C-alpha cells in the first residue's frame, strides 16, 4: 500500500506504546528522541527509519531532506531493506521531496529488491507491485511481477503469470523501456503467451482441465491475441485467430464476439478480404437452437465488411450469391427481431445493391429511369421516412448516385412516395428529406459541370453550371440554395397551418420544423459565403468578405428555432460556435451552460466553447467558476502518474482493459484540450494582471509536455448536423472561429506562454540575493538560453508545411512574430557592442518583424463597425504582439543600462543599432496599443448610442440587391415576423456591449 500524507502509516505493533502515541500524535521531537534510543538499544534499523521520518516532518530543509539522503544511500549501496514497513515509512516521509518520476530510481528499486529477497511473501509482493503501478514504474513492476509469477507457479492464482506477461508487454511499448530492449520485451511477452497457448491446446487434446499455465479465461485470450497482433507476422496471426480451439470463431460460438470483432479489425488493416469474407460468413451463418439465425454478428459493421469482402473476391458473383442467400435468411425472420437489426438488414440489402458486380447488375437494368439503386433507396425510405436517422442512413448511398439517378429520386420518386398512402406526416417528413437530399446534391460534384476558364491558372474559384437548375456560378449553387430556403420556409409554414399534424409532432422522433430551420440556417451560412479554412494557408477572419447579412439571418433563424426546441443539443452547439464567430461570447456562454458539459466529456466537448475564448472575451474569466471545472477535472484525473483505476484492472485480471486504459491515459495527458485549459486561463490572467508569477512550465498539467510530445485533438462533433457530402467541408469547419485544436497550435501557444514568462519576469522587490552580480549573470544566461530555445522550437513548428493551415491569420502573425522576436532578443543579449554595422541576418530579422506587424495591422484596420465587433480575436493578437514588444524593450533596456553601469568602457551592453531598432519597435507597439485602446473606446461609445436594434436589423435585412427579397421574406416567415427579430437583436447588442465593456477593464501594457 502506498501512503499519502493524509494517511500516516501505522507503526509496527511491536513498537512500544510511548513511541506509538508520540508518532500518532505527530509529536516529532519526542519521536526522534525515543526512536534514537530504541535504535541504539535494539539495533533495529526500523527505528532509524522512524527517526528519519520524524525529522522529515520538521521545519528545516536539513531535517526534511535527511530522509531523502538516507533513501539515496540505500539505493546506491544496493541495500535490501529487510521489511516492507520500513520502505513504507520512508515512502510516506519522502512524498513531498521525491518526484513521482524518480520513483523507479528510488522506492521502485527498494521494493523490487525486497520482493526478490522475499519471493514467498506473496502478499507483500503484491503490495509492492501495486505501489509501483500506482507510480507507473513499469520497470520495477515488471520485475516484481516476474518474481511473483515464479513464486506462485504452483498456486491457484493465475494472475501473477498474466501480470508478468502484461507488464512485460506494456514495458515493451512504453518509453520507460530501456533503449534497445523494446523488441526483446515484446518477444518475451509473446513467447510466454505462445507457450500458454500450446499448453491450452495440449490440455484440450488430452481432455486435461488442469492447464494451469495455459490460456483459460476470456481476458487471457484477448491479451494473447492483442500481443500476437503486435508481435507476430500476419500469417501467424491468421493461423492462430482461426485456431479451432482458441480462435475467434470458437469464442464466437460461445457467445463472445469481442475477439471476432478484433480479428476483423486486424484483417481489414492487413487487407485480408478473403479471411474477412470467411469469418463474416461463418459468424452470420450461426443458427440459434430454434433454427433461426443468430443475431450476435448482425451488426452493421459486420454486414458492411462482409459485402465489401464479397466485392473483392476473385469470384465475386459466387460471393454475392452467398451474401444474398444469407441476407435472405435474415430477411425471412426479421419480423421477430429488434427494430435495430431490421434496420441493419435493410441497410445490408441496400449496401448489396450498391456493391453488386457489374455482371449481376446487367440483369437489373433501369426501368423508366428508375435504377435498382434508386428503387432500393426508395424502399428504405418508404419504411423509414419517419426515423430521425433516415437521412444519415441513406446519405452515403444517395451521394453515390449519378446525377440522373439523383435527379430522378428528388423530382419523381420522393414525391411519388409521398403520394402513396398520403398522410400529412408522411408528406411533410418526405418533403423534409427531399430538401435535405437536394441540399446534399449541392455539395456533390455530380451536380455541376465545370465551365472552361477564360483565364488560365487563375486563383479565382472555378465557375460551374449547376446541372440541376442550369444556373452558372461558383459551387455550391446559389440558386439551388435559395430555392431550398424558400421551399423549406414554405413547408414550415404549411406545417404550422396544419393544426392536426402539429398535435402529432411530440410523438415524432424530432419536430420537422427544427429540421427545416436547420436546413435554412445551413443554406444561409453557405449563401453568406463562409468558406472555412483554406487548404494550405492560415484562415482569415471568418466573416471577412462574406455576405454578413446572410450570416446574421442564419443565426436569427437558428436562434429562433432554439427558443422553440431548447433541448436540440446539435442546434445549441452550432449556435454556440456561430455566436462566437459573431463576437457575442457572453451570449454563447449563456447557450453553452445548459448543455451541462461536465466531468469526463469536457475533454472532447469543451473546445467548442473555450477554444480561443480568451481572445474574444477575457472578462468572462473574471467569473471564478468559468474555467474551474476543466481545471478541476484534469487536476483530479491526471494527479496520479498511472492510468486511473489501473489496479482494479490488474486485480480483476482484465488484461485487455489494462492495455486500453493505458492507451487512453497516455492520450488524455497529451490532449490539446489540456493545453487549451492552461493557455486560455493564463492568457486571460495576463490581460488583467499584466504578468503572472508562476511560469507555464511549472503548471502540473503541462509540465511533462516537450516539443516532441505529439498533442492530440479529440473534439467530438458527433452532435452536429451533417448534411454535407464527403466532398464538402462539414459545417463545424465552416463556422469555427479558426482551425480546430492541433498539435502545432498547442505547442506554439505553450511556447508563446514560455516566451511571455521570460520577458515578463521581474525579480520581486524584496528579493535581495547575497551575490547580486552572480545572480544577474545567471539570469542573463537563462534568458539567452530560454529565448534561443523558444525561437528554435517555434521556428521548427512554424516551418512545418502543415502548420499555417492550422492557424488563424492573426495567430500565424502572433506566433511568427513571437518566434522572430525571441530570436532577435537572444541576439540582442549576445551580439557584441561594436561600431560595426549589424549583419544582414539581423537586419532581415528586424524587417521581417516589421512586416508581420504591418500585416496584422492591415487585418485589424477596418472601418466597418460590424467587422470591428466581430474581430476581437485579431485585436487580441495585435495587443499580444504590442505588449510583448513593450516588455521586451524593458528587458533589453534594463540589461543594457545595467551593463553600462557595470562596465564603463562602452563595450558591454546592447549594440546601438539594436537599441535603435527596439526604440522603433517600441514606437510601433505604442501606436498599436493606442489603436487598440481607441478601438475599444470608440466601440464602447458607439454601443452607448441609441438605435442599435434598428442597426442590427438593418444589417440583417434590406442588404440584398432586390432579387433576394424572397429570402428576406422566407426568414421573416420562419421567425414569425420581423418584430420577433428585435428581441434577438437586443441579445446580440447586449452581448457585444458586455464583451466590449470587458475589454475596457483589460490592462493594455
Amino acid at each position, binding site marked *: 500500500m502506498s501512503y499519502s500524507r493524509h494517511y500516516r502509516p501505522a507503526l509496527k505493533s511491536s513498537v512500544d506504546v510511548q513511541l506509538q502515541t508520540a508518532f500518532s500524535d505527530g509529536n516529532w521531537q519526542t519521536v526522534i528522541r525515543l526512536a534514537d534510543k530504541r535504535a541504539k538499544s535494539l539495533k533495529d534499523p526500523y527505528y532509524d527509519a522512524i527517526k528519519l521520518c520524524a525529522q522529515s516532518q520538521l521545519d528545516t530543509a536539513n531535517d526534511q531532506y535527511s530522509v531523502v539522503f538516507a533513501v539515496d544511500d540505500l539505493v546506491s549501496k544496493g541495500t535490501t531493506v529487510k521489511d516492507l514497513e520500513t520502505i513504507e515509512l520512508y515512502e510516506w516521509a519522502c512524498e513531498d521531496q521525491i518526484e513521482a518520476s524518480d520513483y523507479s530510481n528510488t522506492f521502485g528499486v527498494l521494493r523490487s529488491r525486497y520482493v526478490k529477497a522475499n519471493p514467498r511473501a506473496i502478499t507483500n509482493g503484491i503490495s509492492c507491485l501495486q505501489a509501483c503501478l500506482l507510480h507507473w514504474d513499469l520497470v520495477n513492476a515488471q520485475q516484481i511481477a516476474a518474481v511473483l509469477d515464479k513464486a506462485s507457479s504452483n498456486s491457484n492464482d493465475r494472475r501473477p503469470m498474466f501480470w508478468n506477461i502484461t507488464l512485460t508487454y506494456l514495458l515493451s511499448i512504453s518509453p520507460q523501456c530501456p533503449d534497445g530492449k523494446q523488441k526483446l520485451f515484446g518477444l518475451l511477452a509473446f513467447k510466454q503467451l505462445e507457450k500458454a497457448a500450446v499448453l491450452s491446446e495440449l490440455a484440450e487434446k488430452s481432455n486435461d482441465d488442469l492447464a494451469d499455465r495455459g490460456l483459460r479465461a476470456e481476458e487471457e485470450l484477448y491479451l494473447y491475441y492483442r500481443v500476437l497482433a503486435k508481435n507476430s507476422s500476419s500469417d501467424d496471426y491468421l493461423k492462430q485467430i482461426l485456431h479451432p480451439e482458441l480462435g475467434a470463431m470458437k469464442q464466437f460460438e460461445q457467445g463472445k464476439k469481442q475477439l471476432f470483432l478484433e480479428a476483423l479489425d486486424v484483417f481489414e488493416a492487413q487487407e485480408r478480404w478473403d479471411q474477412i469474407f470467411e469469418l463474416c460468413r461463418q459468424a452470420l451463418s450461426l443458427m440459434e437452437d430454434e433454427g433461426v439465425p443468430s443475431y450476435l454478428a448482425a451488426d452493421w459493421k459486420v454486414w458492411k465488411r462482409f459485402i465489401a469482402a464479397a466485392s473483392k473476391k476473385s469470384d465475386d458473383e459466387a460471393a454475392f450469391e452467398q451474401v444474398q442467400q444469407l441476407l435472405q435468411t435474415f430477411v425471412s425472420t426479421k419480423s421477430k427481431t429488434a427494430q435495430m437489426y431490421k434496420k441493419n438488414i435493410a441497410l445490408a440489402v441496400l449496401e448489396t445493391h450498391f456493391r453488386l458486380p457489374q455482371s449481376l447488375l446487367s440483369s437489373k437494368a433501369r426501368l423508366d429511369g428508375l435504377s435498382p439503386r434508386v428503387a432500393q433507396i426508395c424502399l428504405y425510405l418508404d419504411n423509414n421516412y419517419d426515423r430521425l*436517422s433516415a437521412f444519415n442512413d441513406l446519405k452515403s448511398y444517395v451521394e453515390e448516385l449519378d446525377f440522373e439517378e439523383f435527379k430522378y429520386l428528388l423530382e419523381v420518386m420522393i414525391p411519388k412516395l409521398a403520394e402513396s398512402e398520403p398522410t400529412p406526416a408522411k408528406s411533410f417528413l418526405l418533403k423534409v428529406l427531399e430538401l435535405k437530399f437536394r441540399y446534399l446534391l449541392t455539395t456533390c460534384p455530380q451536380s455541376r459541370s465545370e465551365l472552361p476558364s477564360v483565364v488560365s491558372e487563375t486563383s479565382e474559384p472555378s465557375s460551374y453550371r449547376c446541372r440541376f437548375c442550369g444556373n452558372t456560378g461558383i459551387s455550391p449553387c446559389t440558386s439551388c440554395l435559395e430555392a431550398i430556403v424558400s421551399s423549406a420556409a414554405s413547408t414550415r409554414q404549411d406545417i404550422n397551418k396544419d393544426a392536426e399534424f402539429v398535435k402529432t409532432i411530440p410523438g415524432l422522433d424530432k419536430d420537422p420544423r427544427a429540421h427545416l430551420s436547420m436546413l435554412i440556417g445551413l443554406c444561409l451560412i453557405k449563401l453568406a459565403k463562409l468558406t472555412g479554412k483554406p487548404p494550405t494557408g492560415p484562415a482569415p477572419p471568418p466573416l471577412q468578405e462574406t455576405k454578413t447579412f446572410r450570416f446574421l439571418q442564419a443565426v436569427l433563424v437558428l436562434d429562433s428555432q432554439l427558443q422553440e426546441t431548447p433541448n436540440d*443539443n446539435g442546434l445549441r452547439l452550432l449556435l454556440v460556435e456561430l455566436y462566437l464567430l459573431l463576437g457575442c461570447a457572453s451570449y454563447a456562454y449563456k447557450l453553452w451552460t445548459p448543455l451541462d458539459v461536465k466531468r469526463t466529456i469536457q475533454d472532447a466537448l469543451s473546445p467548442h466553447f473555450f477554444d480561443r475564448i480568451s481572445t474574444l472575451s477575457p472578462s468572462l474569466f473574471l467569473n471564478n467558476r468559468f474555467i474551474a471545472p476543466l481545471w478541476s477535472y484534469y487536476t483530479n484525473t491526471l494527479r496520479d502518474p498511472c492510468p486511473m483505476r489501473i489496479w*482494479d484492472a490488474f486485480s*480483476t485480471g482484465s488484461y485487455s482493459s489494462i492495455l486500453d*486504459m493505458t492507451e487512453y491515459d497516455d492520450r488524455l495527458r497529451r490532449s490539446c484540450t489540456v493545453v487549451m485549459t492552461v493557455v486560455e486561463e493564463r492568457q486571460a490572467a495576463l490581460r488583467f494582471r499584466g504578468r503572472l508569477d508562476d511560469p507555464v512550465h511549472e503548471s502540473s498539467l503541462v509540465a511533462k509536455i516537450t516539443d516532441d510530445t505529439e498533442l492530440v485533438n479529440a473534439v467530438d462533433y458527433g*452532435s452536429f448536423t451533417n448534411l454535407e457530402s464527403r466532398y464538402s467541408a462539414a459545417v463545424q469547419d465552416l463556422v469555427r472561429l479558426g482551425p480546430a485544436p492541433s498539435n502545432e497550435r498547442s505547442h506554439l501557444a505553450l511556447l508563446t506562454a514560455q516566451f511571455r514568462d521570460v520577458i515578463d519576469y521581474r525579480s520581486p522587490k524584496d528579493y535581495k540575493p547575497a551575490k547580486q552580480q552572480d545572480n544577474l549573470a545567471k539570469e542573463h544566461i537563462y534568458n539567452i538560453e530560454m529565448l534561443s530555445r523558444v525561437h528554435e522550437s517555434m521556428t521548427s513548428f512554424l516551418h512545418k508545411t502543415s502548420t499555417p493551415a492550422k492557424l488563424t491569420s492573426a495567430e500565424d502573425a502572433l506566433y511568427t512574430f513571437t518566434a522572430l522576436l525571441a530570436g532577435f532578443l537572444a541576439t540582442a543579449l549576445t551580439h557584441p557592442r561594436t561600431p560595426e554595422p549589424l549583419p544582414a541576418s539581423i537586419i532581415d530579422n528586424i524587417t521581417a518583424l516589421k512586416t508581420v506587424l504591418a500585416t496584422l495591422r492591415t487585418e485589424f484596420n477596418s472601418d466597418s463597425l460590424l467587422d470591428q465587433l466581430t474581430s476581437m480575436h485579431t485585436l487580441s493578437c495585435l495587443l499580444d504582439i504590442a505588449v510583448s514588444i513593450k516588455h521586451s524593450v524593458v528587458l533589453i533596456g534594463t540589461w543594457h543600462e545595467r551593463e553600462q553601469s557595470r562596465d564603463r568602457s562602452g563595450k558591454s551592453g546592447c549594440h546601438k543599432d539594436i537599441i535603435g531598432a527596439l526604440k522603433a519597435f517600441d514606437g510601433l507597439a505604442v501606436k498599436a496599443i493606442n489603436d487598440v485602446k481607441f478601438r475599444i473606446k470608440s466601440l464602447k461609445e458607439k454601443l452607448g448610442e441609441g438605435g442599435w436594434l434598428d442597426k442590427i436589423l438593418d444589417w440583417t435585412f434590406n442588404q440584398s440587391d432586390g432579387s433576394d427579397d424572397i429570402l428576406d421574406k422566407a426568414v421573416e416567415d420562419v421567425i414569425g415576423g420581423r418584430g420577433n427579430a428585435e428581441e434577438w437583436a437586443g441579445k446580440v447588442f447586449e452581448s457585444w456591449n458586455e464583451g466590449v465593456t470587458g475589454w475596457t477593464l483589460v490592462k493594455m501594457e
Partner: protein
Amino acid sequence: MANFRRFRPDDLNKFSKCNLDQYTETYELGFYMQYHAKWPSLFQVAEDQDGNIIGYIMGKLESSPEVYQYSEHYLPWHAHITAVTVAPEARRLGIGRLLTQHLEVAADANNAWFVDLFVRVTNDKAIAFYKSMGYSVFRTVKDYYGDHSTDPTLNSEDAYDMRKPCKRDVKLEHIRENGEKFEVNPEDVW
C-alpha cells in the same frame, strides 16, 4: 444502423449524442474506468456508422459483504445494472433492450443468480420496459432517491428494486410475487 460491442475508453470522446441529453448523467472518469476495469463484459456500447456512441449500459457483478450473509437482505452473487442510456435519435429501435440482453448474457456467463436494478416508482415507462423484458419488482426501497422526479415539494422518492432471474436460478428462488409490498429501508440495500 448500429454495432454492439464492449466499451473502450476512447468511446468517451464520442459520448456527446448520449451524454448531452438532459436525462443522462455524466460521471467522473474514474467511475467509467472502474466499470471497464472490473467488469468489462458488462459495459457495452452501441455505436453508429460514424463511431458515435448512441447507447450504452454499465453493469457490475457483486454480492453483499460476507458479514451480512445471515441477514434477510443479503444479496448473493448477481449482476446489477448501474446505468443504461440511449441517445434521443436512436430511440424506438430496441437498443436499450438489446444492450440489456447483452448484459444478461454476460451475467449468465459469470454465473450470476439474477440481474437487478433500481428505478423510481414513478417512472412508469422504464418499469413497463423492464417488465416486458422479464423483470419483476422484488422490493420497494423507501426514500431511496434524495429528490422527487415529479413533485418538487417532496425531498425523496421510493425505488423499486427489480430483478430478473439468471439461468442459474432454476428454481426461481431469487424473485418474488407482489414485491411492491415488500418494503425495505435504504440502509438495507448494499
